[in-house]
């Protein structure tokens, strides 16, 4: 018997073929689980200091070594995954929510609103992302919440632009015209008929953007604008240990690897999604 072809089964069939994306997906699932169950997974309390263990290299007891205050680096990285994922996900989610809404309004109504929203986006585009984030945090003051706000703000315009583009195309499509002609309200056309059609692009960009957001958040923490000590944030851990490069390299290497792998796998995952969601590929 032939299986029925749902959109999901088509997607899954295509996605499975991308081995790297599968690996990335598995890594992300494991990472999310680790973050959720951090207190059970982490071998030590990430805040407990033991000055006599200051800057010990990797051992069996401490597989990633200890930091300058004798705290277990592995446990700190595990707890840090909570912060990085939470900040990455929340900021992109907020950015997407606002960006998609604005893009939809902009593309659907056109005219003055469209001009206003798109020109504002252009202004935001003119800044390199990290500079804009630094400027926002400088105004709001350091702290993780403000980092989320900053990263959201500079994610917004891209979402708005993606959604506006597909909205413009979909608005002219036959089924939307048909819906309008049978008397569907503007609200219904926007949210029921157009919005789902734009989501493919949004999902891809969403995934890729999480990687960028994690890096931005870590960079801000590295500069002392994000997480404040003793929070075990990866960027903050790098900042704390950079003075000891050449003396205790493990202190920078392990948080560095954590950031590198997480961002890499989010991007590979997004890449796989793009291929799988593209109607032109088989």
């Amino acid at each position, binding site marked *: 018997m032939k299986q029925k072809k749902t959109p999901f089964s088509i997607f899954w069939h295509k996605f499975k073929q991308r081995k790297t994306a599968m690996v990335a997906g598995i890594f992300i699932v494991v990472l999310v689980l680790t973050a959720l169950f951090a207190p059970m997974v982490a071998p030590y309390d990430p805040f407990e*200091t033991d*000055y006599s263990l*200051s800057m010990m290299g990797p051992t069996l007891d401490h597989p990633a070594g200890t930091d*300058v*205050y004798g705290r277990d680096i592995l446990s700190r990285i595990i707890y840090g995954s909570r912060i990085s994922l939470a900040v990455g996900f929340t900021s992109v989610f907020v950015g997407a929510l606002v960006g998609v809404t604005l893009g939809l309004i902009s593309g659907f109504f056109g005219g003055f609103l469209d001009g206003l929203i798109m020109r504002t986006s252009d202004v935001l585009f003119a800044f390199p992302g990290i500079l804009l984030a630094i400027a926002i945090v400088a105004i709001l003051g350091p702290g993780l919440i403000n980092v989320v706000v900053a990263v959201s703000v500079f994610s917004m315009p891209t979402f708005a632009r993606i959604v506006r583009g597909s909205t413009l195309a979909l608005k002219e499509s036959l089924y939307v015209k048909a819906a309008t002609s049978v008397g569907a309200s503007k609200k219904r056309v926007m949210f029921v008929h157009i919005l789902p059609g734009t989501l493919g692009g949004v999902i891809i960009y969403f995934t890729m953007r999480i990687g960028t957001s994690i890096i931005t958040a870590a960079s801000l923490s590295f500069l*002392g604008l994000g997480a*404040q*000590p*003793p929070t075990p944030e990866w960027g903050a851990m790098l900042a*704390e240990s950079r*003075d*000891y*490069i*050449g*003396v205790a390299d493990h202190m920078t290497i392990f948080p560095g690897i954590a950031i590198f792998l997480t961002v890499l796998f989010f991007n590979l995952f997004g890449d796989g999604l793009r291929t799988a969601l593209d109607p032109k590929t088989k």
Partner: protein
Amino acid sequence: MKRMVLTLLALVLLAAPSYAGTKDIIYASESTAKSLDPHDTSDTYSGSIQRAIMQGLMGFDKDLHIIPLLAESYTFNPEATQFTFKLRKGIKFHDGTPFNAEAVRINIERMMTGKYKRSSLMKPVKELVVLDAYTVQFNLKEPFGAFVNAIAHPGSLIQSPKAIETYGDEVSKHPVGTGPFIFDEWVSGDHVTIKKNPDYWRGEVKVDSITFRPIPESGSRLAMLRAGQAQYIYPMPAELLKIAERDKKIDILKQPSIIARYLVLNTQFKPLANVKVRQAINYALDKQAIMKIAWGGAATQLDSILPPNLQFYKKQSAWPYDLAKAKALMKEAGYENGFEVVFITPNASNRLRATEMTQQQLKKIGITGKIQSMDIASFYNKLEGHKVDDTTPLPFIAFGGWSASTGDADWGTRPLLSTDAFPPSMSNFGFFSDEKVDGFIKAGLASADPKVREKAYADLQDYIWDQAPWGYLMVDSLVAAKSKKLTGIYPLPDGAFSVEAAELAD
């Protein structure tokens, strides 16, 4: 064959004199020279270069004791209002102008105009009288027992009167003095070069030139030294000491400084106004761990409110690390369950580390709170912005530091702990106020007699130590590193350095 030998011989002969002839030193530092006019300089680094070119009537030795330089001796009256200096004879400035009372008058009167950054040093002076060609007398407005320290301060160096006349305030780019080195060139933002003074009055100078180069990144500074591109680096980052110690061509120099580090406790805030709480904090601080981890071991424990190298320092018994005692004192004071504060600190990595450790350690006696770190200018702006009559005083503990650059006990106590020194006028950032303390500080200034002053400052140190206005931490050790071939350059306790006796082996 013969031709080849001759060529080789010629090469050797050409090379030999230049090899043995020039002894040039490169000094790599984190700072850049800002001015070479001592009367108008407030940074230690520029001041140190000036001290190689110019000298004052008095100066400091390696341990910050006052020694006579251009003056032979001095006398003062018992009221500490009149100081008379006998000048050394037969000394000439680099431009040939003779050094005498007239040269001193021109320099001091220039400072007394109030136009320059170091004019404050001569603020107590009413008038300068030239008694004869080699004797000058300062008459002061009121008793100022620490006046000789102001004369020995690097801001009071004597420049050639002819240079002041020729260049005016542009003398900052054309320094002329009596020191062991003659100014050669200054490329702004890049380097300052000084060369040997062949007629130096204190004896032969052993190197031909010294070039001061700013290398702000500490890793590069160490790399230059290891590669032989610099012979001396300061500061040597304490975090990288392990790398430097492994290198057999490098010597590490550690010198105790006069830079005290302590926690400013806001005594306006009710729990911290309680002396028992402040004592509990001193018991709860693991000073040894903070010195070792936050400061990379480049410190000694603070064992009086004055660092050991300051005049009239008197050693007190150190506060041991004793959690049980700390907890008991908190209970006695009625703060068994602790309270919340804010930890304020400059964001330099070592200070941030020390503050983090403070946070970790005070948590054990129930004092908890968040850290606010900021650049050093914002940090001082914040502390200077606090007001004395705040109805809801901010519960803060701040990471403080102080270097009394006159080398005198007055400047190490009055600006930090007297009631007159509440911000913004001076630096009593914790609003500590105690009548007895104010009395001792006043007594210390009322005389220039060392015995009277010593007594006042000894009483002050004995009394205030148990009052615990601060969380006492440590005294910085200055760490520099140099090539083994180089001798005679060393850091001075106030963070400056001396190059007069520099020598470079082949």
